[in-house]
């Protein structure tokens, strides 16, 4: 079974670890360079992207993670994690891994009072719709030619995407009991030949 590291600098890494372990995988916390050894994939959790990018730098993880994400290693970013994966950010963002060919706008829906839950149709997961939790969430504003959009809001805004072995979701599958997105990451992103 797969070993999926969960970046544990700040944010809801425990929730991701619990889902991976429930699915039979192991999910060590990643805080140092040596924690990256032996992983089959990496999850960058939700949290505050500005805090995480600074901790990546002070923990000497920024360059190694850029190399991994840019070099075909399976990485999934949720919310803050999506911001950290993006090649292009709005003016408030701090460039981090710059691996995925998407343009991302932070806090795209406004303040916390505008955070929401909604049912999303996600064709790669099939039926029923995926209940998605958006918290001060970013959105994808632009996608490059190699990026496949996996889910959109009713107004057409992309909120989940994949490019090769990189996966990004603007929402938090780790906060709901539905483990289909984690299963998708394990079966179709990590395990893909």
């Amino acid at each position, binding site marked *: 079974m797969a070993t999926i590291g969960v970046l544990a600098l*700040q*944010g809801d890494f425990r929730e991701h670890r619990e889902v991976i372990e429930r699915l039979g995988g192991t999910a060590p916390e990643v805080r140092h360079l040596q924690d990256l050894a032996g992983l089959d994939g990496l999850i960058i959790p939700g*949290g*505050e992207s*500005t805090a995480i990018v600074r901790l990546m730098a*002070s*923990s000497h993880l920024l360059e190694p993670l850029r190399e991994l994400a840019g070099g075909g290693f399976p990485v999934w970013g949720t919310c803050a994690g999506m911001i950290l994966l993006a090649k292009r950010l709005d003016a408030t963002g701090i460039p981090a891994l710059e691996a995925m060919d998407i343009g991302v706008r932070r806090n795209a829906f406004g303040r916390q009072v505008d955070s929401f839950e909604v049912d999303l149709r996600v064709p790669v997961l099939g039926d029923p719709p995926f209940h998605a*939790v958006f*918290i001060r969430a970013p959105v994808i504003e632009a996608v490059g030619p190699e990026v496949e959009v996996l889910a959109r809001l009713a107004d057409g805004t992309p909120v989940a995407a994949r490019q090769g072995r990189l996966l990004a979701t603007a929402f938090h599958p780790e906060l709901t009991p539905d483990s289909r997105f984690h299963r998708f990451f394990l079966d179709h992103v990590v395990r893909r030949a």
Partner: protein
Amino acid sequence: MEKGTWTVKVGLAQMLKGGVIMDVVTPDHAKIAEEAGACAVMALERVPADIRAAGGVARMADPTVIEAIKRAVTIPVMAKCRIGHFVEAQILEALGVDYIDESEVLTPADEEHHIYKHPFTVPFVCGCRDLGEALRRIGEGAAMIRTKGEAGTGNVVEAVRHARAVLGAIRRLQGLTPDELMTEAKNLRAPYELVVEVGRTGRLPVVNFAAGGIATPADAALMMQLGVDGVFVGSGIFKSADPAARARAIVQATTHFKDSKILAEVSRGLGEAMAGLDVRSMKPEELLATRGW
């Protein structure tokens, strides 16, 4: 599309875990906090040490202060209202703050009732000294809990006492039988359903931070090793000699709380910490933690 749900309220606190929430009184402070890696800021007119020194009635901050701080940073902005002052809370919600702290650091507006927090769209964090108080606040709708500690003292002793009280009581609940849980709900003066849930899961149903007296990287790591999810630092940063360096160090200590080599490294050369107060020499009326129930 549903807004203001319990999942969304608790969810924002989950995103703050492993992080440091810093008290700030100016946009410049807020930028220093954000650049140091704070996961949120608390917008105030005065830090708790200055509220103590000023005396009188401490109220919600002027909206101008909160708005200026909101414009300065992109991380979540919290603000405090008085215990029981639901109109201050309505105003803070209208201002679009991301979290409201119903706080004993301000002078209580109601000595009998805390705010009924469920109807609000904005989430609330509340202080506690023990598990019963934590569960009463969650029962009223608090989506995040913090220890009260003793704010504005730079002395971690009360935060330790409160964290140990909460976490120790959670450990004792596990393994109790249903009849014992009802007795324990009576003893804790806490909602029975929440007592049962905590007994079953072994954790609070919301995120649990430490607050009140944290002044050094070692203090932050101590609270994390005791088992809290993150820390609030009030006066400890901007009442110290070098706020930017201390803020960065406390952020790193909170992430690497189990790594004593990193803790030793980040504790170096931070200059003077804030001058502290010995809680045992304080008069009962000077204690903030006894406000609220």
